[in-house]
């Protein structure tokens, strides 16, 4: 994936500009920067949820999967049902490797609303494994995870990269993974005239 001179806006205000980076297979890129700098906005733009103001993103089609702050779990469905649903959407048959990777087997038949915050997060992250997508764009994936679970997550990322995948992770903590860092703090967008920019009709 190759990104050049990307600028994105949130709520009608430009937040980031001049973002350049390249993400190769097997690479992990950590996004750093203070709160509000636009890490989430950048990830949402890359995932295709919102249009960029300017710049180029060159990426294979259907390569990115997006992991947001929210896990997208249905509280009345069980762990297995939640994961199976996403596996079916992405056309993947087997959820067992994902269950194993995030140590969810003992929780398989529990309803999601009975899980702790960290267990929910693990289930949300297990979804990444059933997407079969090459690039993981993750927004604060380790929130509410304990030390052991962070290690599970780091293992999953390493295995994913060893298999030719790549990851773009916005995080504030040290994951213990060999990774490059993209610091966004110098990329804050200057004041920009967005008059006539009516995003609903773009």
């Amino acid at each position, binding site marked *: 994936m190759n990104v050049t001179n990307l600028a994105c806006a949130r709520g009608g205000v430009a937040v980031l500009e001049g973002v350049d980076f390249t993400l190769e297979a097997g690479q992990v890129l950590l996004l750093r920067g203070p709160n509000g700098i636009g890490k989430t906005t950048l990830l949402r733009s890359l995932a295709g*949820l919102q249009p960029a103001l300017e710049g180029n993103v060159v990426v294979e089609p259907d390569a990115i999967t997006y992991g947001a702050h929210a896990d997208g779990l249905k509280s009345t469905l069980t762990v297995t049902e939640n994961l199976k649903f996403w596996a079916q959407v992405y056309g993947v048959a087997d959820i067992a490797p994902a269950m194993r990777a995030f140590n969810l087997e003992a929780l398989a038949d529990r309803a999601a609303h009975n899980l702790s915050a960290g267990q929910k997060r693990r289930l949300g992250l297990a979804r990444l494994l059933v997407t079969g997508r090459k690039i993981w764009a993750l927004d604060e994936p380790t929130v509410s995870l304990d030390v052991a679970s962070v290690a599970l997550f780091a293992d999953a990322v390493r295995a994913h990269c060893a298999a030719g995948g790549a990851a773009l992770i916005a995080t504030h903590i040290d994951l213990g993974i060999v990774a490059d860092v993209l610091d966004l703090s110098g990329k804050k967008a200057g004041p920009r005239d967005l008059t006539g920019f009516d995003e609903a009709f773009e």
Partner: protein
Amino acid sequence: MIAILIRDMRLAMRAGGGFGLGLAFFLIVVVLVPFGVGPQSALLSKIAPGILWVGALLACLLSLDRIFALDFEDGSLDLLATAPVPLEGVVAMKALAHWLTTGLPLTIAAPFLGVLLNMPVTGFGWLVVTLAIGTPALSFIGTFGAALTVGLKRGGLLLSLLVLPLYVPTLIFGAEALRRGTEGFDNTTPLLMLAGITAGVVALLPFVAAATIRINLR
């Protein structure tokens, strides 16, 4: 796409899913109207088609705001929008799931409730036919309304106001087809109009609703 349909059906059936809410509301309306009108069975059987249709329409309206709001809150909608299924398909499946959990049970229950309104037996068949043809339109129009208001907190009020005028043609032709059928007249014209509205709405609105969701997710 079938997976989405199955998931939404399963969610509706589980505790707190809202299945039965529309049906219970329909039951309440139909049980209360005879008390309000008083012991005039001739009048009651005359207004029965209209009451049944209005009741079914309002029952459909009750569960609309859940279609996308819950998925929006827990983040599933973002994930569905980036999943390898067309968003139009997601919308169509959600509308279909809404119909299967609301419109279809209403259609099946309606003849039993028609008895409470002293509806002539000749009308029971037409009641099922008109509701079966008309309620899919209610679900699809409602899904479009839900897509319009998906990002709004407490969007239910706005949703009802937006959707009600769009429901009016379906109500007019549905109730008219049922009234004429019950009274033994030819009801081909309103029936065809009703079917035409449903066909058009089912074909077009998923595309409109998907475009609306894309804008709302930005």
